[in-house]
């Protein structure tokens, strides 16, 4: 691994990143909750007389290879993609934070063991790791969530560990230890709150990555299986119609990009606002 981590640079628009990211996320959240009610058609209803239709008044974004309304599929698919990203990042967050806290706070053999495992996991490129996990568990939602979670845990554990090591040197933690406070209380009441901003920023950026990994696996046929309207899987099946009907591949791709953009802007905006190291 490289010796030092280069600092991230602030780009401009920092002040706008957070509100834009937050409103985009809110929009996707509303689509995820009310998608089925908003969608003009049933996302799985086929119409074999109108396949690969270009955008029209009836079907604003056209229809796919078996005549399903693309707009409806993109809207309803929001819930799947968002849920997979949020659940896997949540699971990775809980696991990574626990491992990082334990390794950083207690040090010694426990730290060495945890660091060994995370270092080992980080020697496998994360998408390759995810593919291997999916191939072992099976190409379904459980396999997908497990794969994304596992590939995110090591870097998060490492981040939290280094933050804890920083904090541990500070006087107030030492004072807490000196007055005989229990480890659990020190960790939860004093260490964790001071690591929260770093963790939240990282989780937000990870959620964007989770969307990219999840849809990539869907695209490869290793994620959510058809006929579920998952964006990556929709893009995967539209690949063979690029010659005749490229518009089929437009909407799901734009949806993925916007969702990733939302998480990235939100994460970067939060960093600009919260991170004192800037």
């Amino acid at each position, binding site marked *: *691994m*490289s*010796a*030092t*981590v*280069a*600092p*991230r*640079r*602030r*780009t*401009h*628009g920092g002040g706008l990143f957070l509100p834009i990211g937050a409103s985009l996320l809110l929009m996707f959240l509303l689509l995820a909750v009310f998608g089925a009610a908003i969608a003009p058609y049933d996302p799985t209803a086929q119409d074999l007389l109108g396949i690969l239709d270009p955008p029209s008044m009836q079907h604003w974004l056209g229809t796919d290879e078996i005549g399903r309304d693309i707009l409806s599929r993109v809207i309803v698919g929001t819930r799947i993609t968002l849920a997979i990203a949020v659940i896997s990042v949540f699971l990775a967050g809980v696991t990574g934070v626990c491992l990082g806290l334990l390794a950083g706070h207690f040090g010694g053999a426990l730290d060495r063991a945890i660091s060994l495992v995370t270092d*080992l996991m*980080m*020697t*496998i*490129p*994360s*998408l*390759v*790791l*995810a*593919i*291997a996990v*999916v*191939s*072992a*568990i099976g190409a379904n939602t459980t396999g997908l969530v497990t794969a994304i979670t596992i590939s995110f845990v090591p870097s998060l554990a490492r981040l939290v560990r280094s933050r804890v090591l920083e904090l541990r040197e500070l006087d107030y933690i030492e004072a807490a230890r000196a007055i005989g406070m229990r480890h659990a209380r020190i960790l939860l009441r004093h260490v964790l709150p001071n690591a929260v901003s770093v963790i939240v920023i990282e989780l937000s950026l990870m959620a*964007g990555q989770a969307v*990219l990994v999840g*849809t*990539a696996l869907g*695209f*490869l*046929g*290793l994620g959510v299986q058809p006929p579920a309207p998952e964006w990556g899987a929709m*893009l995967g099946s*539209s*690949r063979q119609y*690029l*010659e005749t009907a*490229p518009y089929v*591949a437009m909407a*799901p*791709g734009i949806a*993925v*990009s*916007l969702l*990733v*953009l939302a998480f*990235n*802007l939100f994460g970067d905006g939060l960093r600009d606002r919260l991170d004192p190291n800037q």
Partner: protein
Amino acid sequence: MIRLLLWRLALIPVTVLAVVTVLFVIFKTIPGDEATMIAGATATQAEIDVVRHQLGLDRPLLVQYVEHIEGLLHGDLGYSPTFRANPLPRILERVPATLLLTASAIALTVIVGIPAGILAASFQHHWPDFTVSAGVVALLAVPNFWLGMMLIALFSVQLEWLPSIGLSGPASLVMPTIALAARLIALVGRMVRGVVIEEQRKDYVRTAYAKGLARPRVLYRHVLRNALIPIVTVIGLQAGYLLGGSVVVERLFAWPGIGDLLLTAVGLRDYTLVQGITVLFVIGFLLMNLLVEMLYRLINPRLR
């Protein structure tokens, strides 16, 4: 530096052994009987038993593990149902295509990312800067496979300039390279912009201008030299993305590399092949990290 290099090289087999062990445990504990899968759906119980015995799957796990490791030391990955043999030669013949793709992605990153960052820094808060920064934000959000699809729709279908699949001459390299490099270009561009802006404010730059050096000379001889370190860092940190991303890009463009083969192996449930290629990716990743670290020490004399 040589000692460090040797030490790191010596660590690689240890890491690989650990990864091999973890993969062995995972793929031995997943549900489903290997012999049944290899014998095929129509096989009788007797045939399955023959396969089980021939492949040594009826022996204790520990014995299988030791033989697995012994085999690996002799370049034998095990029995691959897809190729009905040790798949190593079939994997190795696909390595050059993957190397070509990742190397050209890194080259494109350097060629486009660095000038874009310099351009943005030179016109800070003016339209070239806004364009580059907007491009960075966009490229970081767009999935590489969708970018590739849009390139195919434009350059293969509409304009008929470039072939959309396979490896056939330099033209076929263009779109896969762009799709794979896009994220890296964005990261490097952003990093270069930040570093150049920061470095420009420093005393040595003012001194260089004061003694009458021209702007390009200051930029390339002084500023960029210091910017090289974070650039190498970014590329190094993204080595994992490059290798993982190559899997997706190879599938999209039917590129004859090991990533494409990995997906075929997953589809056929050929676990020998999956494990073999995963280990190869790990070795590639470790070597890339080593290379980055050596490069790092080369361009940063303080670390020597």
